[in-house]
Structure formats: structure tokens, C-alpha cells
């Protein structure tokens, strides 16, 4: 399609559009329109891909009216976040900042404030871009994905949610409903990203979460890296810290292992050596900060 003075516009290929009225209706529409239908929420990943013809759905099912999917709720030992929750809401949530500072760290560096007004946690996770910050965050927090489908609801651990680049456990006739984070006492988490310019995808980013026991030793830990071809977290690096008092030499050793375990590729964002160096340095930093935050966290 051409615009004024014949300039070429980037416009998606033709498709049909339907707006879902509730979750059940969204599932019905997915079923009715079949494999060439896609859910659209914020649209800030899908629409650019459609403009480039990297995605070419025949039907878009708009779930932006589904207020039932937009919530941040603390229930018992869980923080439950609806799939349609916007990045801005996550960034501004006091519960998120207190319980899972890693989410806040990441949200501050995801795209820009205007994009964050539209983009959603569900869209980020379902897009499953290998450089997606929230994928690492959810891996590190060992979150659970609640998926709704024609046969009801199922709960999938984040380690099983991601199936590879742009692939998730959400089937074509299903919808990501919510993400659940388990609240742990004496826990801390952190995320740090290096990007070429503000709002860009990560060159490399690292995330870490730790839970301390009453005597201050590391009970539970998770280390993740973004944009370096890592599948889930790094158990070998996590094992270095488990059962130990947090110490700088352990952070260094865990970071060395994590950097060696990842698979960066040489691309326009930098060469392999540079990315591995970043993975090492950023892992140390997030471990330091996560442990400091855990030490300062509330008892329960």
C-alpha cells in the first residue's frame, strides 16, 4: 500500500478481526477460526512481525477488552498476574517492587514508557523472543503459567513453558491466562541488561533470585541469562551458591560457570567474546544485588 507522495507504508497483509468479549469467547473464536488465528493483546510484537510478513495470521482475536485478564493480586504465598497486565502496571505496582524487585528492574529497561503502556506480560511470554527480558525473569522466579483451553485450565512450570525461540507450551486453541509467582521469605532478586541504546533488545542481560535460610545461607537460587541462547536457568552455577553464605568468590565462580554455559552468537549486537564477558560481569552484579536485597528483605 502506498501513502502520500507514493511512499511505501509498512502494512500487514489482509486479515479478519474479531474482538473477544471474555476468555470463554476468545477460546471459542480460536476454535472457530482455526490454526491461522492469533490472539492480539498489546500488539507491539505481533504487529511489527505482521508488517514484515514474518507473521501472517488470517484472523486476529483482540483480547484488549478482557478486564478479567488484567490484575496483580497477592493471594496467600503467591503473586498472581493476569496475562493482559501492561508493563506499566507491573512497573508501578508496589507489591511487585517489594516482593520481586527483579520484575521492576527488568520493566525499567523494556522498550520505552509509551510502548510499556500497551505491551503485556502475556504477550511478552507468548512471543517468546530469545531476547525477551520477562522470559528470563519468569525462569529465574520459577514462575508458573496458567493456560486455559477448551478442556479447562492447566498449570505449566516456566521450565516447560518455553519450547524454543518463538515457541511455547500454549497450543493454538489455548490462551495464557495468568502468571503465578511464589512469594518466599528472605528472598531477593535482580536484573541487569546491557543494550546498545535505551529501549533496545538486550545485547546480554542477567537475572538472579536467591532465598536465604534463617542463618543467612543460600537455600534456593536461580540464575538466568537473556539473548545468549540459554535454555532455562544454569543449575551448575546455582549449585555453587546453594548451602553457602553469600560471598564474592562464589559469585565470581557462579558467574564464570554461567558465562561458559551460554551460547552467544556473533551478530550486529556484538561478538561472542564480548557477550560472554557481559554474561560473566552481569551475573556477578545481579547475584550481589539479589543477595543484598534478600538480606534486607522482610522475614515473612
Amino acid at each position, binding site marked *: 500500500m502506498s*501513502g502520500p507522495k507514493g511512499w511505501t*507504508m*509498512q*502494512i*500487514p*497483509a*489482509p*486479515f*479478519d*478481526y474479531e*474482538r473477544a468479549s471474555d476468555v470463554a469467547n476468545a477460546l471459542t473464536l480460536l476454535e472457530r477460526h482455526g490454526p491461522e488465528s492469533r490472539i*492480539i493483546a498489546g*500488539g*507491539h510484537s505481533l*504487529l*511489527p512481525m505482521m*508488517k514484515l510478513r514474518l507473521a501472517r495470521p488470517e484472523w*486476529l482475536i*483482540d483480547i*484488549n477488552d478482557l478486564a478479567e485478564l488484567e490484575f496483580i493480586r497477592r493471594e496467600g504465598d503467591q503473586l498472581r498476574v493476569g496475562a493482559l497486565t501492561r508493563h506499566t502496571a507491573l512497573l508501578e505496582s508496589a507489591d511487585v517492587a517489594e516482593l520481586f524487585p527483579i520484575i521492576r528492574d527488568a520493566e525499567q529497561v523494556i*522498550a*520505552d*514508557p*509509551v*510502548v510499556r*503502556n*500497551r505491551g503485556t506480560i502475556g504477550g511478552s511470554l507468548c512471543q517468546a523472543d530469545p531476547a525477551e527480558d520477562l522470559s528470563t525473569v519468569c525462569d529465574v522466579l520459577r514462575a508458573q503459567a496458567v493456560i486455559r483451553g477448551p478442556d479447562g485450565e492447566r498449570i505449566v512450570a516456566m521450565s516447560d513453558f518455553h519450547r524454543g525461540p518463538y515457541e511455547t507450551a500454549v497450543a493454538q486453541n489455548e490462551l495464557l491466562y495468568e502468571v503465578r509467582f511464589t512469594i518466599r521469605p528472605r528472598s531477593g532478586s535482580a536484573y541487569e541488561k546491557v543494550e546498545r541504546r*535505551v*529501549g533496545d533488545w538486550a545485547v546480554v542481560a542477567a537475572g538472579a533470585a536467591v532465598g536465604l535460610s534463617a542463618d543467612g545461607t543460600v537455600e534456593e537460587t536461580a540464575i538466568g541469562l537473556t539473548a545468549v541462547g540459554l535454555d532455562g536457568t544454569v543449575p551448575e552455577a546455582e549449585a555453587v551458591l546453594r548451602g553457602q553464605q553469600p560471598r564474592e568468590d562464589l559469585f565470581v565462580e557462579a558467574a564464570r560457570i554461567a558465562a561458559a554455559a551460554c551460547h552467544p552468537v556473533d551478530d550486529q549486537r556484538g561478538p561472542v567474546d564480548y557477550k560472554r564477558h557481559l554474561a560473566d560481569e552481569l551475573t556477578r552484579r545481579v547475584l550481589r544485588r539479589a543477595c543484598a536485597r534478600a538480606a534486607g528483605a522482610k522475614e515473612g
Partner: protein
Amino acid sequence: MQVSMTVNGDKVTREIEPRVLLVHFIRENLGLTGTHWGCDTSNCGTCVVLMDGQPVKSCTVLAAMADGHDIRTVEGLAVGGTLDPVQQGFMEEHGLQCGFCTPGMMLTARALLDRNPHPDDAEIRQAISGQICRCTGYATIVRSVQWAAAHPLGAQAEGDAAGAEESTSEEVTA
């Protein structure tokens, strides 16, 4: 398909293809060319409009998704012929050179001031960080928004056009 939305207070209804982006709907279907169309990839922010009071990049929103919503474009900033204080601020503080980024910058500034009437410079820079001024006039854009924050009713309403003049000459000599 048919879409209806409120644009700058007026209800509009048009027949469109589902794939029409909001920026093109506003420019081509409604003829409101104040909303600029830039990178097409949600990076530059010149296409920012307010959707239910929130800045959004209209190149990455389908017009169909705006159906039933309230849209405000730069044409809707002035009320009854009186410029919005943000527009006055951009004049007083030389907030634009080529003007291409200006509509989006002003709408984001309006939304920021509605939420936070007294932002500091860092908050303004954060708010506009998804928008690019290729003339690199960020310093004057920040000053323009600060001018609007300091004059919430605009210069004329407060009768302090002299004050505005002062700050302008200050900037020139700086």
C-alpha cells in the same frame, strides 16, 4: 469493517479494512495530518496520540483496536482557540526546530502533566524517552514542558506573558 471512536471530542465512524493502522486512519481517513508518521516500527514516537488519556504509538495500534475508545491528537490540544500550555511552552522555550517530532512530544507531555503536574527534568526525559527528536533539541523540549508545568493555565490566563518573555531571553543569552 465499521469502526467508531471519539477523536478530539467528536464521534467518528468509518468503514475500513481491519489492517488499517491507527496512524493512517487518523491521517488518511480523518484528514488529521498533525499526527506524523515516521519509522513505522514503534521506535521514533512521532505518531504518538493519546488513547483514553495514555500515550500510544499509533503506528502499532490497529484502528480496529481503537474502536470505542477516546483518541486525542495534536489537533485536540488547543481548546476554543486557546493553545494548551504545553503548546505555549514549546513556543516560549523553542521546543521545536523542524517540528516533525513535536506533535508526539506535546501529547506525551500533556499526559505526563495530567498525571504529574510538577515533574523534574529526569521525569520529563524518562517520559519522552520513547520519542526521537532528530534535531536533538531535547534540552529545549524539557524546558518547554517545564514552562507548561510552571504555567498550568497558560500565559494569557495568568497575565504573565512578561514572565514568559523573561525566560525566553534568559535562554537566548545562556
